[in-house]
């Protein structure tokens, strides 16, 4: 949409109507009068409209026509050209120039009209689209609302359930407490009862015993033919204090005997274990000692050397230990030395192990000891490279992510947290809010559009009128040059189609217009065209700005209904591109 067609060239229809009508009123008569004259010529013309115009100018009213045309041309703002009569003869050049200018003007108007039409078409289609999307969004809204209510209902039911369950739990707990208290009370009661009964029982027993004893039960007796000797052959002894002491003594002797046997067995076990330990120690020493020469050269192992020096003392201790086996100190020494030896053995074994593994690996590699180092270096290098590559990839990924979906992040996060109903609810609310906003935006836009459409309609109407008027005047003016019209009409067409912009740029549009426009028409003319311009320009402009957030929203909701929103996005893009 260039600036070139924009301003001020449009004749003010309201102003010109009077003049035009008066002129037409004047001009009408000659037309009718000469209608039959020019019938031939008009018949030859391709456009029938010219036949009417042929009546505009006759031999008699040429100067008036010229004046009129000049006037009109002036009013149209074509200042550079005017018809001149040179001794009553109309020179062709200015006429042609004028004609050309007028044609230009007309073409421009046509183009503007066309543009306007397409613009309108576009806006109407936009409108339709918006209506569609509005409809869809409404549906969606309805749907979400229903969903929301469903969720609310579910939540309510769950809450109800929870409440009933809690009540259940409470009652169960109470019952448990009750039962526990019952149990404890029963237990105490039962205990009490048993005690009471037992007491009664013992009392009864006592009583029974007493009665039976008192009765001097005749039956209670032993009949024995003759006494039997004791099984051990000894005579029975009197119960004396001495006897008691003896019993005690025997008891303690028995206990002592038991403890002694136990101690003996423990001692035996102990000595066995000690022997095993000694044996172990000796074995260890013998195992370790031949290794010393090959171990010793290692300078770092001072602990081992220390141990070795202790070792040399140990064999001497051995005999001593065996002598004073039970001695606490000796035992401690023995266990300590064993522990030490054991540790040494362990470390030695470990070293052997590692050596063996090293040896094995060496054997595996053959005599490529150097290659091992190389290999390790290579490994190190590759590891480094790998690390770098990883970092690089990571960075790329990050960048990509940043570029791709900075708004999407929220979305994915939301999706991730989807599983929590609470968050779901929150999200729904958020969506709801966004949707409302969107709706408002749409509403606003629609209003804008309707306004624009109305305005456009108005403009179109005025333009139509204008054009009609202009055409009329044109035809009024053109009639004298019916014969020349044909080449003039064809040529500018081709010239225009080839280089319309060059032409337009060559003609300084605004400055000349402001200079040559009629001072009367200019102030009134300006607002309407400016208005049109603004409305035509503003709508996409305003829309573009207004869209930005809504566009985002749309892309947001794209995940839900991709197919429908694709068109929206494309639309957004179209609208954004001119801005």
């Amino acid at each position: 949409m260039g600036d070139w067609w924009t301003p001020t060239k449009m004749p003010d229809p309201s102003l010109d109507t009077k003049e035009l009508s008066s002129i037409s009123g004047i001009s009408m008569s000659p037309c009718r009068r000469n209608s039959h004259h020019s019938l031939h010529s008009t018949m030859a013309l391709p456009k029938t409209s010219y036949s009417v115009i042929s009546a505009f100018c006759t031999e008699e009213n040429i100067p008036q026509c010229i004046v009129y045309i000049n006037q009109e041309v002036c009013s149209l703002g074509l200042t550079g050209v005017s018809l001149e009569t040179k001794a009553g003869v109309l020179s062709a050049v200015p006429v042609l120039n004028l004609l050309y200018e007028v044609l230009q003007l007309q073409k421009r108007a046509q183009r503007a009209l066309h543009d306007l039409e397409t613009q309108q078409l576009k806006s109407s289609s936009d409108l339709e689209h918006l209506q569609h999307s509005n409809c869809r969004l409404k549906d969606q809204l309805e749907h979400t609302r229903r969903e929301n209510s469903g969720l609310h209902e579910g939540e309510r039911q769950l809450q109800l359930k929870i409440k009933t369950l809690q009540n259940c739990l409470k009652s169960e707990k109470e019952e448990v407490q009750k039962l526990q208290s019952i149990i404890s009370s029963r237990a105490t009661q039962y205990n009490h009862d048993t005690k009471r009964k037992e007491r009664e029982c013992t009392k009864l027993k006592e009583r029974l015993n007493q009665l039976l004893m008192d009765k001097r039960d005749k039956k209670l007796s032993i009949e024995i033919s003759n006494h039997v000797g004791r099984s051990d052959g000894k005579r029975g002894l009197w119960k004396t204090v001495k006897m008691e002491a003896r019993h005690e003594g025997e008891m303690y002797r028995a206990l002592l005997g038991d403890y002694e046997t136990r101690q003996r067995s423990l001692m035996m076990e102990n000595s066995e274990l000690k022997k095993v330990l000694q044996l172990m120690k000796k074995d260890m020493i013998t195992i370790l000692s031949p290794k010393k020469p090959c171990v010793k050269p290692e300078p770092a192992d001072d602990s081992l050397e220390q141990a070795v020096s202790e070792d040399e003392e140990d064999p001497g201790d051995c005999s001593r230990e065996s002598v004073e086996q039970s001695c606490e100190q000796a035992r401690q020494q023995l266990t300590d030395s064993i522990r030490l030896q054991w540790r040494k053995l362990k470390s030695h074994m470990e070293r052997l192990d590692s050596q063996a593994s090293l040896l094995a690996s060496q054997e595996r590699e053959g005599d490529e000891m150097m290659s091992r180092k190389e290999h390790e270096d290579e490994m190190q290098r590759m590891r480094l490279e790998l690390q770098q590559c990883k970092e690089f990839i990571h960075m790329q990924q990050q960048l990509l992510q940043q570029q791709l979906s900075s708004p999407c992040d929220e979305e994915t996060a939301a999706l991730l947290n989807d599983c929590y109903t609470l968050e779901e609810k929150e999200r729904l609310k958020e969506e709801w809010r966004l949707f409302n906003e969107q709706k408002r935006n749409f509403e606003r836009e629609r209003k804008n559009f309707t306004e624009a459409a109305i305005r456009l309609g108005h403009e179109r109407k005025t333009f139509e009128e204008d054009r009609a008027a202009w055409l009329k005047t044109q035809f009024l003016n053109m009639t004298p040059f019916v014969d020349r019209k044909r080449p003039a009409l064809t040529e500018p067409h081709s010239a225009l189609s080839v280089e319309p912009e060059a032409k337009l740029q060559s003609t300084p549009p605004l400055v000349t217009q402001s200079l040559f426009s009629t001072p009367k028409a200019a102030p009134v003319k300006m607002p309407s065209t400016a208005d049109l311009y603004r409305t035509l320009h503003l709508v996409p402009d305003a829309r573009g700005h207004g869209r930005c957030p809504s566009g985002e929203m749309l892309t947001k909701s794209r995940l839900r209904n991709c197919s429908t929103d694709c068109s929206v996005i494309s639309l957004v893009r179209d609208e954004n591109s001119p801005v």
Partner: protein
Amino acid sequence: MNFSEVFKQSNQLCKVSPDGKYLATCVQYRLVVRDFSSLQIVHLYTCLDQVMHMEWSSDSLFILCAMYKRGLVQVWSLEQPDWHCKIDEGSIGLVSSRWSPDGRHILNTTEFSLRVTVWSLCTKAVSYIKYPKACQKGVDFSADGRYMALAERRECKDYISVFVCDDWHLLRHFESETQDLSGLEWSPNGCVLAVWDSCLEYKILLYSLDGRLLSSYSAYEWSLGIKSVAWSPSSQFLAVGSYDEKVRILNHITWKKITEFEHPATIMNTKAVVFKEVEKRPVVGSEDLSIHQLTVDNSLFSTQSKYEITQLPAQVPVIKPDPERANPKIGISALAFSADNRFLATKNDNMPQSLWVWDMQRLSLLAVLEQTAPVRCFVWDPRRPRLALCTGNTKVYLWSPAGCVSVNVPVEGSFQVQSLFWHCSGSSLVLLSKEHICLCYVEAEEEK
């Protein structure tokens, strides 16, 4: 393996003298004493009523016959057949009678556990011990016969009295830390007394001879507790069987649990051998290598049975105890160590058909004997690691580390073995049916 002829018996009263020379049986009110080797009747005594209880004195010189209904105890002498002794407890009643370890005193427990009367055969003297507790095992003599531990109940508390059996001197009297004492048992070396609570509480207490509490052990709470207790002959282990179907082994130094033997329904232990008794009609054919079958095939009408080794894991038949009834049929009701301390045999009441043998050296399951009928009785050979058991049918079963044997009792008619016990030499088994006895000589078999 040989079998003797069948003799009559009543009330399952049949005892071998401690020296192993005589066999005493009661038939109604008669007491028959036979020479064990020849089975010839040596003596025949006639009691005043049907004998309810019969017991040899420790020196094998006297036999005690108790007639609880009449409150009478009669003692017979082997050396002097015409010697007699009759003890009448009178109107106070009699529920149990036993010899003291010296064989010269008789301890009678009166009805309602009013008292224990101690009768001396030497001096005719009578002494009373009051407040004895009526429980699972309220009296126990130490193995050397020197001490007697007696559970008492006074003032709703449990007490233990330790008597010197020589002169019934009260050596120690102390309160036991039990809620309701259920039993006590001396360790075979006579130095430790194990005391356990009733099944309502899992608690076992170990007292020294001088009344000190050595240790107390409780495996769990709030559940039925101890059902059976057994000392190993070496006094080294104390096996405690409980209602949770486990046996816990305590050691004699720290009195802590060494291990516990579970009795699972599915045996997964690959080291254990599961012998399953399979009953079948005699079939001529080759025998499986894994089957140890020894049958005397003159019993044409009785079913034969043999043991088969079951592939592991094996399922043990389990019965569900009735939870509503008291003394539910669940848990370890019987435990017995072999004489050499190496094996422990257990029976879980809700697996009545199975007998479990545990290796005490490796502390693991060694064998499971799955019988076709519930196990009635199982006894270790007093000399060898050999276990005899019966299930109330016509067979005797023997287990040894070498394997398992099922033997049909080859007598005319059916001889359903209700219980059995070993002769002290381990050479023969005495089998008891409801009304008969039969001797089974196992030694010959072993030597063959």
